[in-house]
């Protein structure tokens, strides 16, 4: 599932901090690969620090030699990481002044990576409810469109994902992926690439929900599973209004689940 992210963030946040050490433990071949991708890891680590407020908006990032030393990377790698973060609107480099964190409003917060960093950094309750508010706009509308269209291929995809959710309900590894596929298949029914792009939001919120609600052991509540079944039925029967309402209910209850679960920050 993580392949959907353009940068695969490392588990947790501590690994890169020993990057210098880590690299020396690798064989030649791996070390080369590591160099190729290290700017991505570095960008993810700095990105998480920025969204977590370690470097607040308007602040200058520590100077280059300091960062290079901290992570054990070369100036080239640092520059590439900065380029990546700049393209996501998090920072701006000014000659002779240094690299500054941009105002929050300019962050590309819908970028899959930036979104993931927010969730990994331990998002506030506002962020989670904002996220669900956005899903509440997109997904019921998409469910209604899916029910209107009733394209056989789409219904098969949704039904197949639902089958897997039932099969993995006790929390096998495939549950999150099945759940994601269910929602993606509904977005896909719109055949609108902008709407399917919101899949990254669903991905992020599912990972977050499963982690905070069940401490990493993904398991779905019977009620929620049942609600997915109702959505599928409404789409299958070509009932747009009902599909829309069922999806809205599912999202509302899922947000309540997330709110009720004990506030746990990052692993």
């Amino acid at each position, binding site marked *: 599932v993580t392949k959907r992210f*353009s940068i695969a963030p490392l588990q947790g946040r501590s690994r890169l901090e020993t990057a210098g050490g880590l690299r020396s433990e690798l064989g030649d071949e791996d070390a*080369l690969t590591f160099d190729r991708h290290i700017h991505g890891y570095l960008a993810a680590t700095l990105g998480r620090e920025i969204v977590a407020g370690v470097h607040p908006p308007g602040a200058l990032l520590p100077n280059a030699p300091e960062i290079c030393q901290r992570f054990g990377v070369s100036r080239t790698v640092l520059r590439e990481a900065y*380029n990546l*973060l700049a*393209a996501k609107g998090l920072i701006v480099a000014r000659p002779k002044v240094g690299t500054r964190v941009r105002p929050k409003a300019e962050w590309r917060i*819908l970028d899959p990576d930036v979104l993931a960093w927010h969730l990994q950094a331990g998002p506030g309750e506002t962020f989670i409810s904002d996220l669900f*508010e*956005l899903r509440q706009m997109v997904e019921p509308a998409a469910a209604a469109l899916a029910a209107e269209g009733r394209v056989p291929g789409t219904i098969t995809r949704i039904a197949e994902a639902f089958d897997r959710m039932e099969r993995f309900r006790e929390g096998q590894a495939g549950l999150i992926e099945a759940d994601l596929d269910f929602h993606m298949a509904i977005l896909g029914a*719109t055949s609108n690439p*902008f709407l399917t792009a919101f899949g990254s939001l669903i991905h992020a919120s599912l990972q977050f929900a499963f982690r905070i609600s069940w401490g990493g052991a993904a398991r779905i509540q019977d009620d929620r599973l049942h609600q997915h079944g109702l959505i599928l039925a409404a789409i299958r029967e070509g009932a747009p209004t009902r599909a829309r309402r069922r999806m809205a209910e599912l999202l509302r209850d899922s947000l309540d689940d997330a709110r009720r679960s004990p506030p746990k920050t990052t692993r």
Partner: protein
Amino acid sequence: LIRETIRTLIAINGPPTRWRAKIGRGLSLVFTVARGEPKGELEQVLADTTTNQGDATVTRGAKRAAGGAEAEFADRHAHKRNANDSLAAVLGREIIGGLHPPGSRLPAEAALLVRFGVSRPTLREAFRALEAKGLIVSRQKVGTLVRPKSDWNMLDPDFLAWHMRVAPTLEFVNDLFQLRQIFEPHASYLAAEARSAAALKRIAAAYADMERRKSGHGDLVGADVRFHKEILDATGNRLIGTLGGLIETALVGTFRMGWRGVAIKEDRLLQHRAVLDAIAAQKPDEAQACMAQLLRDSAADVRRALEKDARAKRRHVPPQG
């Protein structure tokens, strides 16, 4: 080689009349293009002392210099770009336009360095920008690959801007308006519900600017864009507010297609007014309905213009064979 490259560039960027191409460090070549063919030989070779001017490779000089509201507008919305952003934009448009299809390999670094006449760090910077938007990925021993379309970050305003330059098709416009139809009426509902005096003041100010500039004097499009962005911001939801950047790009892009002419239709202006009034009166349902109607009618305007445009183009194509 230059001829081939130019044909490709025209396919992607549309036909400017005058081109400036970098052919080496500090050297530029200026030539004219007529009917899709580079016409005549090089006009002049310039010692290129001015960098950071528009695209690193090609400047649509003549079009920019054409003057008028459209050119002025294009300049204002060209964003604060440096030369490297533009290199990313050129490569990004080539990928989106299908010159480098998903799964294919980008030309080798060495070839691109020659073609664009840039330094390696500059090219790398462009690569990182494209990587950040999910367009490419670098693989060990394979090179730089174009990622599948499903990985492209469609919600990135830069991506959208590149996409709009390449393919503002009817399908694309439909998709965009479907997206707006999903968010903006709901956002208007939330804005009316939020009852923020400060937000209302900003929406009202944007509307007042639209009314003042309705005949096209001054930055009418800017005021229009601001009206829609302020409503998204008024929801108080940061994620929804971010969509403003996307919708700004979409609006600027569709306006650039020239469907509306300079002035705004009186009907559309009144519909904006109705949305504002409903938000001010704190009537969420009414605000939602008014915005939905406004978007439906605007979408119809754009579609009509695109179809007219397509008909006009068909008439001008000489019979085949």
